[in-house]
């Protein structure tokens, strides 16, 4: 048994864009113009293991709807008459296109998904009433989807928007539900709510099939989610274990550190310590890019993470931490400082006692912020190594969650993935979700040499991201 959804709307509300997003593949043609889609096209959204299929029809848009509704109501057997009429495809494109949409609903639909352009106020959408009248004449259940909402909004704002439309639509008997589902920025958990609404609009004999389909759909979404968390766990694990050796401090190195400390420096990293930090940072940079690319691919999107991803990361730190201290933390809270410098000096007998002390003292004072945070200057037998500080790793975990939201909300209809501005309430939601789980995370960092580090991180991420999605979409089942 197949269940069929017809995606209809006034022209250019973004049906094809939403269909691409729901299907996870590029279908049809997308252009900001009226009457771009001219033929109804069927696509399979999901197939249940029991053999049922959920099908989605992308239809041409309604055009010139007010005249259409008037004409239909004037005629005796309106819909039948409208469908037997042969409209001239080229002479009256709007009517021809409307006829195609109506035919599709009459012939195919179990449930009609009616998309509206929510960037317009309901009272400015003059076609709304007329199109609902046409659909009421057909008599199939209708679920209204609010599209073109813009960037993701907080649950309260979204609920207000839905309420506004519900108010405008309450008089239409065929409307069963109103949901926010932006083709550009929606999340898989919202699609689950859409399927819930479809199920409740179906007759009893179709419920079993719908249940199977919903199950299959949910499994698919969950699989992607878990795979994403695994990718992010790997990223965090690698960053936690990354080490970079500091070359043994020699003369010239110490001198350049002194110079750098006194403000006599060229651009770029000059001291061995700075060079080591840069190497570490470059590896992290490459890793973030790579794992973001995998996340993008997992979500059925094209495109690659770009410079902007890292820039966003840097901005994130700048916002989260006071600048000077934040930078010290980002760079790993490296301490070479007074003691290390002094000891080397004496051993090599290079610098005079006074000079060595001066250099060590200045550098030590400069890195005091890092030192105060109890950093990871890890001593091997021969050489000192530096690694990322826990504060940096905490931030990496937070930005991993933000990055996941950015990819998971990106609609396929939008084309290749490009990073966009995070809505500010995401950052708050992440902070609120991470705060009660901070101790667990600290515990993981404290024992980073344990063999199940990656598994522990993945478990933490799954728990945190589930709470995050729940917070953003309170009505969703995850």
């Amino acid at each position, binding site marked *: 048994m197949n269940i069929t959804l017809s995606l209809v709307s*006034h*022209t*250019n*509300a973004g049906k094809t864009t939403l269909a691409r997003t729901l299907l996870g593949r590029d279908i049809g043609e997308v252009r*900001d*113009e*009226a009457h771009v889609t001219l033929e109804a096209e069927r696509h399979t959204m999901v197939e249940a293991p029991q053999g049922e299929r959920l099908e989605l029809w992308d239809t041409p848009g309604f*055009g*010139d*709807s*007010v*005249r259409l509704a*008037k004409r239909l109501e004037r005629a005796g057997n309106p819909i039948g008459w409208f469908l037997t009429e042969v409209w001239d495809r080229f002479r009256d494109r*709007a009517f021809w296109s409307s006829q195609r949409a109506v035919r599709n609903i009459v012939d195919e639909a179990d449930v009609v998904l009616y998309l509206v*352009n929510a*960037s*317009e*106020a309901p*009272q*400015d*959408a*003059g*076609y709304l009433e*007329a199109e609902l009248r046409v659909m009421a004449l057909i008599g199939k259940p209708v679920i209204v989807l609010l599209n*073109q*909402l*813009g*960037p993701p909004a907080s649950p309260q704002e979204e609920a207000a928007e839905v309420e506004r439309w519900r108010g405008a639509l309450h008089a239409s008997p065929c409307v069963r539900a109103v949901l926010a589902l932006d083709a550009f920025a929606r999340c898989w958990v919202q699609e689950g709510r859409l399927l819930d609404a479809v199920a409740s609009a179906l007759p009893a004999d179709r419920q079993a099939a719908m249940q199977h389909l919903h199950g299959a759909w949910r499994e698919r979404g969950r699989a992607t989610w878990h795979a994403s968390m695994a990718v992010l766990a790997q990223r965090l694990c690698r960053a936690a274990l990354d080490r970079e050796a500091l070359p043994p401090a020699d003369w010239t190195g110490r001198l350049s550190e002194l110079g750098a400390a006194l403000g006599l420096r060229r651009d770029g990293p000059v001291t061995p310590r700075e060079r080591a930090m840069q190497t570490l940072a470059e590896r992290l940079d490459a890793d973030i890019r790579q794992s973001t690319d995998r996340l993008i691919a997992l979500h059925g999107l094209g495109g690659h993470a770009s410079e902007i991803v890292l820039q966003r990361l840097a901005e994130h730190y700048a916002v989260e931490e006071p600048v000077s201290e934040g930078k010290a933390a980002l760079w790993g809270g490296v301490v070479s400082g007074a003691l290390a410098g002094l000891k080397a000096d004496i051993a090599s007998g290079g610098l005079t006692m006074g000079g060595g002390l001066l250099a060590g003292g200045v550098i030590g004072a400069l890195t005091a912020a890092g030192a105060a945070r109890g950093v990871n200057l890890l001593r091997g037998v021969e050489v000192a190594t530096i690694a990322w500080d826990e504060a940096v790793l905490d931030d990496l975990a937070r930005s991993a969650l933000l990055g996941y939201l950015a990819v998971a909300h990106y609609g396929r209809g939008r084309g290749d993935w*490009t990073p*966009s*501005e995070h809505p500010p309430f995401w950052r708050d939601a992440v902070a609120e979700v991470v705060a009660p789980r901070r101790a667990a995370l600290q515990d993981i960092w404290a024992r980073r040499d344990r063999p199940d580090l990656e598994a522990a991180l993945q478990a933490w991420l799954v728990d945190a991201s589930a709470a995050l999605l729940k917070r953003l979409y309170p009505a969703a089942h995850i």
Partner: protein
Amino acid sequence: MPCLPESDARDVLLVRAFESPFEAPWSDADAAWASREAQRLEGEGALPERFLARRARLAVERLADRGIATGSPISFAWRWLAVPGAFALGVFSDSVAATERINILAPPLLGLLVWNLLVYAALALAALKRSAAEPGPLRGWLVGWARRATHAAGRSPPLARFAADWARVSQPLLGARIAVVLHVCAAALALGALASLYARGLVFEYRAGWDSTFLSPSAVQRILELVLGPASQWSGMPLPDAHELARLRFSHGGGENAARWIHLHAITLAAVVLLPRLVLAATAAWRARRLAAGLPLPLDDAYFRRLLQARSGQAVAVQVLPYSYHPGPELRPGLRAALERRLGSVVRLDIAEPVALGDEDGLRLDGIAGSIPVALFSLTATPERENHGAFVRALAALRRGLVVLVDESGFRRRFDGGELAERLAQRRSAWQRMLQDEGQTAEFVDLARP
């Protein structure tokens, strides 16, 4: 329709192109200055035409100071080359067939006569069918060519707009000037042919005769009477009878001395081609002169009405008709500011009830007569020919000088962020395309930011 001298009309249109909407380097401050200055120089009671011309001259000087070169859009120097050219063509066409023999049936002469008579008939017919200002095919082609040349001259949007306006307004003038050249050329061509005959007749002896496979002497006599009869009567030079014509066959002898035939031909050409063409040229020249001295400008359009209203210190009345759009009261200051910027004057705002989608069919305008109609759309809507286009069409049919505003505030609010610029550009171009088909241009405004 008020008339302005050619150069003033050009200036007025040029300034209009920079003022609706305002384009750098011209600003509303400059516009206000020009109005004030013109008012001061011309005095309170000056005729509107004089005020507009003075204002435009001042503005053009200021524009020239800012590097806007407006020179003559099309050079007309070529016309005086065409006349000697036509004369030379006449001379040449005769000497090509230079066998010192004149065919008294004279096929080239017949051709010339027939061609000119056809042209007169066509001109007479055209004059009956439409106003003389509208050019026939040849002149129409030349006018079109001159227009395209003018278009190519305007590169920036205001200059392109000016070129298009000027081409439209100056078309009758351009047509008359081209007509002068064409008539004089036709006369010169005939004169050239005759001059060649006489000049060569001085040093060679032309022999006149005829020959035909099909025509009998009596038929030839009838033809000659038709073609040269009038010339023969006026000059008193008799035409030969059939008997004499039989003798003049080249196959029966060498013909006769051609002097009388040359005279007869010359008289006929003068009567049928030279004189009428010169009279027509003079008429066209007179019309061109009159147009150059006073070119009719459609001064009742919204722009001029607004300038003149502003001059008299009145606010310009505008009636805003939102279409399937309910702009909130918070957008009113933005709307007023946008309209005052666009119209360069204080406005008296009347916002009508929004017109619902599909209601454009029975559209009526209840606003104050003479107010400027403004169609207001929201950019969040997808422009549709069947609805938005029909509304603009209906409104433009009801009243002239329609202004079309598209409010971006809702769209900007909704899509603020990384992709705004791209989406904005796409949506704007969809609106522009649709409005272009209706012969309108949209002004995109953000009413939330007055």
